[in-house]
């Protein structure tokens, strides 16, 4: 049995991976603090409840990233000759499905609150000798949920591109969404402070639709990856790399025609290249040289088979 090489990341990328893991652990600590603060201040506000659920759900992505990367760094063996790269894709699917299911739940919950005309009723909170309306405490809680994710998300997006990690990218997008949802919730809280109870429920519905939309999109992306769809970039656009490889091979004078097919395998790309050649024979050494050159075009090209065939 020929076992694929472990490969994966360069030294610089390993440094980025360490940073990404640190950011994931930091995210988990931060999100735990947000979930606790939101729970203590949410009262009967539907918008606050939705933000609380979303913040707890946001922990799924960094957890999946840490689990996926722990497994994919294992060496391939006879039982798993292709390695464990697919763990990352499975974790991506797990995180996305969790997001989608809970998104669906909060959409239904928020719609029911609007239908029932449920109004948030928030009383006083006594801190020492001060009596404060509980609604005022929601603002600092929501600001704590709005500002840090902006920075966390930006840092993760850059690293996710360096590592070609879609789970990390999803996590960064979720952080950005957290910031937006907290901002929408502030509008909702202001609404019921003004006596416009419906603004709280509508804010909750907007937030929950956004969660559902994100979850659906990411689930679709994750499923297509597992179905060996042609590789896409972080934003979902088709990768140009396969075509670039094809163009390069056509420049070789002994190549008559070429076809390629690639798939994503976690962080890396695997693929087969079929050559139709002009000459009668080609040596193994020549094939290896071509394979090595292709692998040098992009760090992700680690599991490549180049073969010669009469008919394409």
């Amino acid at each position, binding site marked *: 049995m020929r076992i694929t090489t472990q490969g994966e990341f360069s030294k610089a990328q390993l440094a980025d991976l360490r940073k990404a893991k640190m950011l994931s652990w930091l995210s988990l600590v931060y999100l735990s603090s947000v979930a606790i603060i939101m729970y203590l201040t949410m009262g009967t506000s539907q918008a606050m409840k939705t933000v609380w659920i979303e913040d707890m759900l946001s922990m799924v992505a960094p957890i999946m990233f840490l689990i996926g990367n722990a497994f994919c760094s294992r060496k391939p063996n006879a039982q798993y000759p292709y390695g464990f790269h697919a763990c990352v894709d499975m974790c991506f699917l797990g995180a996305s499905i969790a997001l989608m299911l809970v998104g669906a739940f909060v959409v239904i919950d928020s719609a029911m609150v609007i239908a029932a005309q449920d109004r948030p009723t928030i*009383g*006083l909170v006594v801190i020492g000798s001060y009596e404060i309306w509980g609604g005022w405490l929601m*603002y600092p809680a929501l600001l704590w949920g709005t500002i840090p994710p902006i920075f966390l998300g930006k840092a993760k997006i850059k690293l996710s591109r360096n590592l070609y990690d879609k789970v990390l990218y999803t996590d960064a997008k979720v952080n950005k969404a957290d910031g937006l949802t907290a901002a929408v919730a502030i*509008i909702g809280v202001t609404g019921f*402070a*003004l006596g416009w109870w419906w603004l709280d429920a509508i804010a909750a519905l907007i937030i929950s639709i956004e969660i559902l939309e994100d979850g659906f999109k990411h689930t679709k992306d994750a499923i297509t990856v597992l179905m060996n769809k042609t590789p896409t970039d972080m934003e979902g656009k088709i990768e140009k790399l396969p075509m670039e490889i094809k163009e390069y091979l056509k420049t070789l004078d002994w190549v008559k025609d070429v076809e390629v097919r690639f798939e994503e395998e976690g962080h890396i790309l695997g693929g087969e290249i079929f050559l139709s050649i002009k000459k009668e024979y080609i040596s193994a050494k020549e094939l290896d040289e071509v394979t090595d050159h292709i692998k040098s075009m992009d760090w992700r090209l680690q599991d490549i088979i180049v073969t010669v065939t009469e008919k394409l």
Partner: protein
Amino acid sequence: MWLQRIVIFCIVFTFGCSKLPADANDTLEHIQANKVIKIGVVINPPWTFMAQGELKGPDVQLMQNFAQSLHVTPEFQLLGYEEAILALQSFAIDVVIGGLTESIHGKEDVGYTRPYYTETFYIGTKNNNLKKKDLVHCSSPMLYKFVARKGYKPVSRVNTSGLPLAAASWQLQAAGYELSKKIYEQKHIFFIPKGENKFLIRLEQFIIQHDQDIPILLSKVANENNHTR
């Protein structure tokens, strides 16, 4: 960017506006304009009861004092529990009283205040000599399970003289019992319509300022009537 501006505006506006929060249905404004506060009463002795054709009880007294603080007249209306919930939901009344507690069914359908009194139940003894598996006379059937949970045997037969008594602390103290073992606690609240946050704040401020009134009113009830449940 536009979202950030709206958020900043919301924060500055609400903190700058001293009249907030507002009532969703202007309950406090209506009370002050009409000079009347409509109070739904669920009869539940000793909190609310009829005596010689007159409505009495600590909850009633507290509401009369609250109405006085608002310079309005209290208008009491006797209602069944479910009637009272429906009346609140349709804003036909402003508040419901009747010894209601945090654990009561139906609380989720209405708004409610912070607890105005925490009623603690004890097993009381005359000689502080309480042992596990002792028979304990329960002043109310609702205390049976709490007495049993603590390892005692609840009874309610007629001849219970000399037995320890499970009852509220204010009842035990009025009857000369020592408070030997705490068995249960329940927090009393008032119901208000949902979304009436300005009215709620006003009522809760009153509750905080008068948190010592209820124990005094309860001991008055215990001494006057020797009322047990």
